[in-house]
């Protein structure tokens, strides 16, 4: 680094002494050493000259008329402010009290009269070194300050980008409560929630090693993957596999993400949970009973894709049941005595919930009471998700991003999956994705997904696998159904399911025609109660799945062909609906 003030530079020295002869001697001596000298005959003159000449060092007689050295020293030091100007008293005083007063007034040292050239030169050099060091420190401090300011401004901008990517999704839904405290500009914790096209919600809570910029950089792709895939209808396990693979590839060894994926299905009253490295979660039943949900997996970003287990645990959860998840910042919250809140703190808070108090509030209050005024030592994130009736869960904001491109309007495509692929791949995200290319269909993603899913599941389970839906009417049969489903999925040789999608424009909107064919033997649709009668659920729903009813209600028409293994549905949308919905979005 270039030194702004060279050590050998000539100094500007201010001297003040009321004795003309002393002043002349000193002045001559200093000039001979090569310095530039300004001289004053009293304190008042010295202060004025200091202001005009901004000297590097000041030599000040202690006793002077009009203003003595003590007062001049005080004024000069005040005027110098942050700048270090060594101030040396010239004195013939020798009693300790007087010398001490000189230092109290701001003096840095003394020179005693009569003057000794060698001592004066040595002291001036010594103080000049100190002055330079002080100057270098100040310069560096200013530079660090400026850099830091620049860094903070850059982080603020980056944070705006980050917040757009890693937005909270539908975390403001009525059944979710959360607390997230950022430790620095970026938080090492992430919390995302998204409605699923098929209904229900996906929630991801994560904690990256470290915080600040490195953690935020890891969080961005996680947010993109989560929101992108969730809106296309992928399930939690698929998204976890994708996140793990991505993090494994981009993060250096030693950096990873502890996290949990929660898939809430409000129709089936069940939760699917995957937890890797987060503290225990809790499911709290309406009667207060608690179920511990421990982490069973390694954090994300550690295992290579072929060793990663995305298997989620399924837990029945009725409306009113609450899931509580947290990052380790909650457990590591410390108090003034250096103790940590810990799992015991969480359990104690849950044990002492008041009647009518939300468990979420109980835990947050307990953490705050525990830590008092201590600052959070780590990012603290706490989430509570309540199971709700599907009906009560409609106010989910739709953040599906429309593409900047105008979509295709007239198209046809055929997609057929065959053989083993039937057993280990779901075509639904892909098919939904194709349909979502049509701008007019984007707002209908939930309905389209449901139609595609019902068609596919009927074709697979009843068509290809020939599973009788009556089994699902008893709980034993339910287990047997899914056991059998798993078994038969291993034997799909010679089978196929073929989707044909056809979209066309109409004067007032568009029409999506979907046919789904399968290689199964079909069924007797001519006598099927749901298809024969136009009546609402009641008696008919007992016989066959709700799937057919859904198809009938959501679409213009459902037609069965051949021996029942060829279904065609017609789905119409119109511009007016789209226009008013978009209008509503603009206002909100």
């Amino acid at each position: 680094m270039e030194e702004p003030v060279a050590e050998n530079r000539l100094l500007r020295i201010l001297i003040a002494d009321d004795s003309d002869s002393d002043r002349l001697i000193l002045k001559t001596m200093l000039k001979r050493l090569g310095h530039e000298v300004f001289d004053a005959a009293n304190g008042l003159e010295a202060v004025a000259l200091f202001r005009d000449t901004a000297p590097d060092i000041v030599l000040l007689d202690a006793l002077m008329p009009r203003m003595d050295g003590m007062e001049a020293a005080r004024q000069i030091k005040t005027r110098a402010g942050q700048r270090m100007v060594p101030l040396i008293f010239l004195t013939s005083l020798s009693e300790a009290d007087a010398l001490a007063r000189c230092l109290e007034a701001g003096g840095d040292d003394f020179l005693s009269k009569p003057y000794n050239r060698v001592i004066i030169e040595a002291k001036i050099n010594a103080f000049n070194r100190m002055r330079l060091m002080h100057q270098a420190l100040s310069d560096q401090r200013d530079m660090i300050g400026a850099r830091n300011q620049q860094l903070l401004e850059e982080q603020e901008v980056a944070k705006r980008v980050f917040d757009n990517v890693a937005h909270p999704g539908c975390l403001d839904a009525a059944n979710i409560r959360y607390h997230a405290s950022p430790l620095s500009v970026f938080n090492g914790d992430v919390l995302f929630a998204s409605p699923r096209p098929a209904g229900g919600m996906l929630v991801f809570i994560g904690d990256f090693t470290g915080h600040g910029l490195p953690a935020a950089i890891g969080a961005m792709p996680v947010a993109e993957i989560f929101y992108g895939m969730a809106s296309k209808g992928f399930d939690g396990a698929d998204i976890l596999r994708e996140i793990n693979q991505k993090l494994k590839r981009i993060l250096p060894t030693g950096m990873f993400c502890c996290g949990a994926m929660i898939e809430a299905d409000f129709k089936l009253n069940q939760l699917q949970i995957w937890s890797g490295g987060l503290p225990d979660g809790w499911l709290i039943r309406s009667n207060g009973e608690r179920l511990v949900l421990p982490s069973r997996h390694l954090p994300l970003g550690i295992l290579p894709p072929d060793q990663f287990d995305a298997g989620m645990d399924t837990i029945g959860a009725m409306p009113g049941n609450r899931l509580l998840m947290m990052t380790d910042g909650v457990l590591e919250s410390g108090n003034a005595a250096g103790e940590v809140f810990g799992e015991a703190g969480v359990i104690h808070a849950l044990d002492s919930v008041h009647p009518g108090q939300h468990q979420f509030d109980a835990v947050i209050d307990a953490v705050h009471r525990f830590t008092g005024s201590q600052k959070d030592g780590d990012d603290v994130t706490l989430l509570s998700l309540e199971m709700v009736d599907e009906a009560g869960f409609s106010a989910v904001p739709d953040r599906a991003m429309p593409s900047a491109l105008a979509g295709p309007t007239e198209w046809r495509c055929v997609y057929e999956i065959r053989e083993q692929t039937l057993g280990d791949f779901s075509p639904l995200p892909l098919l939904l994705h194709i349909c979502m290319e049509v701008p007019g269909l984007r707002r209908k993603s939930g309905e389209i997904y449901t139609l595609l899913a019902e068609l596919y599941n009927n074709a697979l389970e009843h068509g290809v696998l020939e599973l009788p839906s009556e089994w699902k009417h008893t709980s034993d049969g339910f287990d047997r159904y899914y056991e059998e489903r798993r078994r038969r999925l291993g034997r799909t040789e010679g089978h196929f399911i073929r989707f044909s999608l056809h979209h066309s424009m109409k004067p007032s909107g568009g029409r999506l025609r979907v046919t789904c064919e399968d290689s199964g033997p079909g069924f007797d649709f001519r006598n099927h109660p749901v298809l024969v009668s136009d009546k609402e659920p009641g008696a008919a729903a007992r016989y066959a799945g709700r799937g057919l009813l859904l198809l009938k209600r959501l679409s213009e028409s459902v037609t069965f062909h051949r021996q029942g293994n060829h279904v065609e549905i017609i789905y119409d949308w119109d511009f007016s609906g789209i226009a008013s919905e978009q209008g509503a979005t603009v206002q909100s």
Partner: protein
Amino acid sequence: MPIQTRRGEDSQTLIISIEGRFDFSTHQAFRDAYEHGDQGIRYYIVDLSETTYLDSSALGMLLLLRDYAGGDSARISIENCNNDVRRILSISNFEQLFAIR
């Protein structure tokens, strides 16, 4: 010294002992403990009997050691953990990657 290393009696084992807090501040010392070791080391023991605390960056450092020692074929055991340390290792399911005794 918070981190000490010694050879086991079989001369093929490197024993790394960590005293006090095992966190980011020990990063360099921990890497030095195994990276500049002699050739011929085939087994690693991370002795945590004197470790009072372990955080997620320490978990990351253990993963670095695992990579250094051969990844899936690494032979590393983590020994003598106290209850708190043991709990953090088990929350993170590190028993799937290390022998924890």
